[in-house]
């Protein structure tokens, strides 16, 4: 078992993921900040919009993905700040691992952290908005949309971390490009969250899948240029 894990961790993608997971278990910076932000957003929107059984199906998916996306921005900023602080990114770039492997490792770690926050936040969201707690149809939507957000966000986070106003730059760069993923996620989440039949909403799942593939390919190619000094 140990030897299998050791062999798995010799793949740069999983090595970067392991490193980020261990760092996160020590500091909990990303998980706590993303979770608190997502939770606060959900609570504030609940008071601001006062959703009723009649309009909850319209507003709830949007609220959920605004909370996850903006929370994710915090996590993305933190993820690359750790690399920047002591020349960690330089040390990664000095290894023979391909830039695309480093990128994919960072995407995976951000994906894992965001999914962990979503797993905890979704039941709270369902209780607050009086929605079904069990929503298995939401799982593929969450997985595909979160992967898309992580794929785009990782590239722009690597870009923004070298700017002086990185906290401002990241959302400015990331959100316009991530809009298709967020729109698709909101549309695909509606039947999953409210328990309605999929209907036309099912078409958003392959669209999300295509976005993920396109973003992963383009961003992994662009990452090498972004991190070059």
């Amino acid at each position: 078992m140990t030897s299998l894990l050791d062999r798995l961790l010799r793949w740069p993608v999983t090595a970067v993921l392991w490193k980020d997971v261990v760092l996160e278990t020590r500091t909990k910076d990303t998980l706590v900040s993303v979770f608190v932000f997502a939770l606060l957003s959900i609570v504030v929107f609940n008071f601001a919009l006062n959703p009723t059984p009649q309009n909850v199906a319209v507003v709830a998916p949007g609220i959920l993905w605004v909370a996850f996306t903006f929370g994710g921005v915090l996590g993305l900023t933190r993820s690359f700040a750790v690399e920047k602080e002591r020349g960690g990114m330089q040390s990664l770039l000095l290894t023979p691992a391909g830039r695309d492997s480093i990128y994919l490792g960072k995407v995976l770690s951000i994906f894992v952290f965001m999914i962990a926050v979503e797993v905890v936040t979704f039941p709270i969201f369902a209780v607050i908005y009086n929605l079904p707690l069990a929503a298995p149809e939401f799982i593929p939507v969450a997985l595909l949309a979160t992967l898309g957000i992580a794929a785009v966000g990782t590239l722009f986070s690597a870009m923004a971390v070298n700017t002086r106003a990185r906290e401002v730059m990241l959302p400015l760069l990331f959100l316009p490009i991530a809009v298709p993923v967020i729109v698709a996620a909101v549309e695909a989440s509606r039947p999953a969250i409210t328990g309605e039949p999929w209907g036309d909403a099912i078409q958003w799942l392959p669209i999300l899948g295509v976005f993920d593939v396109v973003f992963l390919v383009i961003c992994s190619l662009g990452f090498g240029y972004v991190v070059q000094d």
Partner: protein
Amino acid sequence: MKNDVNAYVQPGTGHKPTPEGSAAQDSARQGLAPESLAIEVRGVTKSYGRTRVLDGLDLTLQWGQVLSVLGPNGSGKTTLLKILATLTRPDAGSVRIAGMDPDKAASRVRRATGVVMHDPMLYADLTGRENLRFFCRMFGLDGSEERIAESVRRVGMTSRLDQRVGTLSHGMQKRFSIARALLHRPRVLLMDEPESGLDLSAIELMRDVVTATKAGGGAVLLVTHNFDQALGLGDRLAILGRGKVAHEEALRPVQGAAGGKANTTSPEALRELYLKHSGESR
């Protein structure tokens, strides 16, 4: 990922050469021409915005040599090191490390070079062991625990291996940084002010690392502000000024080099030269 430099053996490290682990075979696996220069920089130019940091710089380093690079702030020392470490690309000119073009064989160049920069380049919330294990994985190295033990022993940090790096002093972090650079037993060491933050005993250990690399047939490019360190460790000295090599000379004869001659310039005169170029950069 296949490891192709784990066979490099340095004297005094306790690693015995094996039939499949000789330096020659290691060179062959990396595609190195044995007679090639360790570092060859020709006409390298690099600008950041409108500022030209390197301006047609030429530099060579032979195997078994230590080249000390001195220069005032802003003379392009760190930029040169970043280009050699494949962290940035020159705008013009050519670079070859161990006979390889970093543009075409970046991964192999990174396997052949160990880099110590000014920052420790370690994760503060991981222990020394976890940091080094992570870099062993990133290099795809076999026998990581043996490598870690060997490299920390060389920098005298065995007793601090399981302590979080962030709790260590800057000097101790720097020692771990040197250990990280040695993990894959590189043939070329690139060091940017390695002595900064180190105490006297650590400086001695660092000197041992440099000497052992040189004695093992490797090469070391040492960027420093410490004039005495540069003269004490270097076989050759290059003083950078205005993005070029302003002065270069051999400090001691090179073993085996035909007609190798030591310098005729006294340390005092070299110091004067260095100060002159520092003055020009101001």
